[in-house]
């Protein structure tokens, strides 16, 4: 049952004459009046919770602006990071905003907006652990904690060949690091600063492992939504709003 159904859906993208097709299009920013965003709320300041349930952060502020401009109600689905990417790729949600770096692989599977933030991937270590002294020390054989499906995950696994442990949340990786089960964590600099701020015995090494840029992902071929988002994003960048959001969420 289930396999044939989703095969049908895939075919529908090109042929456009099956009933499944119509059902599909209505989700993607269609007539529902809702704009559904997928994210993973363990990535402060981009997305996190204060009260344990309401997702807030830079990406949420941006998404709210977009929803407002489109006259829709924003609905946030807080899942795993790799789940969020899949959800947008499959069209379960309208878009994913989770500090997503643009990579060629991802571009094959989904469309991205213009980049709205620059991500410096840094290395977090335990103070005085002594194993990793600088970013160059992260090499083959280093035990690295990453969040599953992030660019840090792919970079460390595929490019550096590190021994990678995948986590759902950075908080979990931080615990591992503190217990000397990891040599380091590779993650974005902004959430890294928050992580270090909350954990006295961790520190960020100088310099960055690599840089990439964040954009919002939408389902491949959904140019209508993409154009609307780009318009709003460009406006926010021009008005300096995004920097403002970032400051709001980091200086508390």
């Amino acid at each position: 049952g289930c396999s044939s159904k989703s095969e049908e859906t895939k075919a529908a993208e090109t042929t456009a004459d099956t009933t499944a097709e119509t059902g599909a299009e209505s989700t993607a920013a269609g007539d529902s009046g809702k704009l559904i965003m997928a994210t993973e709320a363990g990535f402060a300041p981009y997305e996190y919770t204060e009260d344990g349930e309401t997702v807030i952060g830079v990406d949420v502020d941006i998404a709210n602006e977009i929803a407002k401009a489109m006259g829709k109600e924003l609905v946030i689905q807080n899942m795993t990071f790799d789940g969020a990417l899949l959800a947008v790729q499959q069209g379960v949600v309208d878009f994913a905003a989770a500090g997503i770096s643009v990579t060629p692989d991802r571009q094959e599977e989904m469309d991205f907006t213009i980049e709205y933030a620059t991500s410096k991937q840094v290395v977090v270590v335990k103070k005085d652990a002594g194993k990793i002294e600088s970013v160059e020390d992260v090499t083959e054989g280093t035990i690295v904690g990453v969040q599953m499906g992030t660019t840090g995950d792919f970079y460390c696994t595929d490019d550096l060949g590190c021994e990678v442990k995948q986590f759902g949340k950075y908080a979990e990786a931080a615990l591992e690091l503190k217990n000397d089960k990891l040599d380091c964590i590779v993650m974005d600099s902004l959430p890294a600063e928050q992580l270090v701020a909350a954990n006295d015995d961790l520190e960020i090494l100088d310099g960055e492992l690599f840089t990439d840029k964040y954009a919002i992902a939408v389902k491949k071929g959904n140019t209508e939504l993409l154009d609307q988002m780009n318009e709003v994003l460009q406006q926010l960048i021009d008005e300096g709003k995004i920097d403002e959001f970032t400051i709001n969420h980091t200086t508390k």
Partner: protein
Amino acid sequence: MGNWLISAWERIEKAFLVNGRYAAYLNGFKTTLIISLFAVLLGVAVGLILAIIKYTANHVEKNIILTLLNWIANIYIGIIRGTPVYVQLLIIYFIIFAKMDTSPIVAAVLCFGINSSAYVAEIIRAGIEAVDVGQMEAGRSLGLGWGQTMISIIMPQAIKNILPALGNEFIVLIKETAIVGTIAVRDVTKAAQNVGAITYDLLPPLLITAAMYLVVVIILTKLLSIFERRLAQSDRR
């Protein structure tokens, strides 16, 4: 010792009180209960159909349609019982519902309801078969038809075996649904994980959550055993 206590209290405070976080746990638990309840209801609806197919296929003269239905029911039950509910959850959410505007809660209810149905089918079938065969014989020997005997004599007795087992299935579901956070449902476990992600201190939220499950499970188990005793007594008035 005093320091230790203070720090423990601070951690709990951060996990439960700061920023009104307790609301997240309570709302989360409400979601857990709602999903479990509707899943068990769906499970009963589908499980009842499966049980009737399987029971009649075994106890009534064979015919092709019944054999076919029984065969389908067996495959359905076999697949559901042969694969992890976690994998089923991922499949249902990301694939079956890929093209529909379905809330993750509905997906969770569907997943656990379908999963439960395979187990409920067995509960119902076993509950019916636990009624002494002599009861069917007595009914038939009086001239009652198979269906009449089933409804007036077998079912009222079977229900006393089935209801407590269904209550137990509900309790099992409350625990099993702890994994729904994976598909963006904000249940109580997910609330704990969210709080842990912001405080960087997972232990207190997890213990709070475990305690909530424990209390609810103990209370429900107690109620269930009282209910069960009542049912058992009702024949011995």
